[in-house]
């Protein structure tokens, strides 16, 4: 199992550690509910060093990224970040990821830990005949997500470069806590605002200490992966492996907004996905709230009032902010409209639920 440079610090702070996608990661510190609330109301810091960082460089960098990404990178300029996915050639998704635009000859792709090897192999294959330079910096790069309404205010103490007014989904390379060339972006997976900070491994521990110290007056706490999951699910964000995978299309997953059929964006599988968009799909990813007691979990069947199976749950939890059981899943198209009554089969019992719009949590 791989470890991050923060392992000793997590253990010293009493984290419960688990194997996540082959990495020894903190799932919880003080408790998922209090950690969740800290991020919604103040600021929390997550170790997400397990995420993968792949650089695409050289004269062919733009061509390769445009080819593999469903979103249109033509709209990007220096300092911009974009959320997108790699469509496979069979109507599914290889992974979802972030693109950082340094120049048309230099992009950083940030991918899911569980998919680093798969994504790398996919990129190498798609690069045949294109000829961009690929390098995998995942093992040398640490990543801390500092999230919450007070995150940027707290982190401003650690850099002279102004960061508090940075627009969402932008980045800067700056000196941070005395370390040069730190990449800071106003991105995250919580819907609470804040930033993500990419650090060379050797500077990781000192920056972590500096972040905790700078955040102390704002009530900063370390946060584990369990709260990362409840936070993202309250926002209705997809988790690869749960809500999207090699067999779900971005159109089915309501990710049409990152699948851009613009001129010049000739990405892999474009024709198939464009046809899906025009003709419609037979199933859609929905959000739902349980109206009766129970908690929906991944793979529980979704049924109609007659007890016919109409889909399956992909993610579910008790929302710490809303105190409601929420979830996501795929259902047949006629049941995808918000307000539709559906039922989740929980241990043989049908529990009433209703399709609702995402995000579940609206701040």
């Amino acid at each position, binding site marked *: 199992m791989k470890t991050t440079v923060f392992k000793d610090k997590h253990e010293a702070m009493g984290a419960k550690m688990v194997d996540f996608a082959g990495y020894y990661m903190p799932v919880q510190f003080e408790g*998922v*509910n209090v950690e969740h609330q800290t991020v919604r109301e103040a600021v929390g810091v997550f170790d997400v060093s397990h995420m993968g960082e792949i650089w695409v460089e050289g004269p062919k960098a733009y061509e390769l990224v445009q080819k593999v990404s469903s979103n249109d990178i033509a709209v990007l300029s220096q300092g911009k970040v974009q959320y997108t996915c790699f469509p496979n050639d069979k109507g599914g998704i290889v992974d979802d990821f972030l693109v950082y635009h340094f120049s048309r000859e230099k992009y950083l792709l940030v991918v899911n830990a569980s998919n680093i090897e798969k994504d790398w192999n996919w990129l190498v294959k798609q690069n045949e005949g294109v000829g961009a330079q690929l390098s995998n910096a995942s093992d040398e790069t640490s990543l801390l997500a500092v999230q919450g309404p007070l995150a940027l205010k707290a982190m401003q103490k650690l850099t002279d470069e102004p960061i508090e007014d940075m627009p969402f989904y932008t980045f800067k390379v700056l000196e941070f806590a005395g370390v040069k060339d730190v990449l800071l972006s106003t991105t995250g997976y919580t819907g609470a605002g804040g930033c993500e900070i990419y650090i060379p491994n050797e500077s990781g521990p000192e920056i972590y200490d500096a972040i905790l110290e700078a955040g102390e007056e704002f009530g900063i706490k370390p946060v584990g992966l*369990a709260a990362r*999951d409840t936070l993202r699910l309250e926002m209705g964000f997809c988790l690869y492996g749960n809500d999207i995978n090699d067999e779900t299309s971005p159109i089915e997953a309501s990710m049409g907004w990152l699948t851009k059929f613009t001129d010049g964006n000739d990405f892999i599988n474009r024709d198939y996905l464009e046809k899906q968009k025009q003709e419609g799909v037979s199933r859609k990813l929905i959000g739902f709230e349980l109206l009766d*007691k129970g908690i929906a979990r991944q793979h529980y069947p979704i049924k109609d009032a007659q007890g016919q199976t109409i889909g399956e749950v992909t993610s579910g939890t008790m929302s710490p902010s809303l105190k409601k059981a929420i979830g996501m899943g795929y259902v047949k198209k006629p049941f995808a409209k918000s307000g539709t009554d559906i039922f989740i089969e929980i241990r043989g019992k049908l529990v009433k639920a209703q399709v609702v719009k995402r995000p579940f949590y609206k701040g």
Partner: protein
Amino acid sequence: MNLPGNLKYTKDHEWIKIEGDVAIIGITDFAQNELGDIVYIEVNTVGETLEQEETFGTIEAVKTVSDLFMPVSGEVLEFNEKLEGAPETVNQDPYEGGWIVKVKISDNSELEDLLDADAYKAIIE
């Protein structure tokens, strides 16, 4: 790890307090800590007579769901209704306020299957 000496335990991480012919049942401090924040406890077996090891309910934490097993055979007499509105009591006070059900013991010989605090401690260490 808090393990009161006056209670009996099971390998399924439940504790049992014997009061005459009634067993009060909950989950151990170790179990609540492993589960994390508990958000819902479902027991719809009140009034039913169940065998030892049968499921009498489920406990939902944020991340996982676990079954609750009968440590001894008997009739489920009562569910701790306080847990309906405040399931987190099981995290905060697993051995007192966080008791889950009371069961009328039907076979006293089964009590011999239960572990004492030291034997349970050996399992979780």
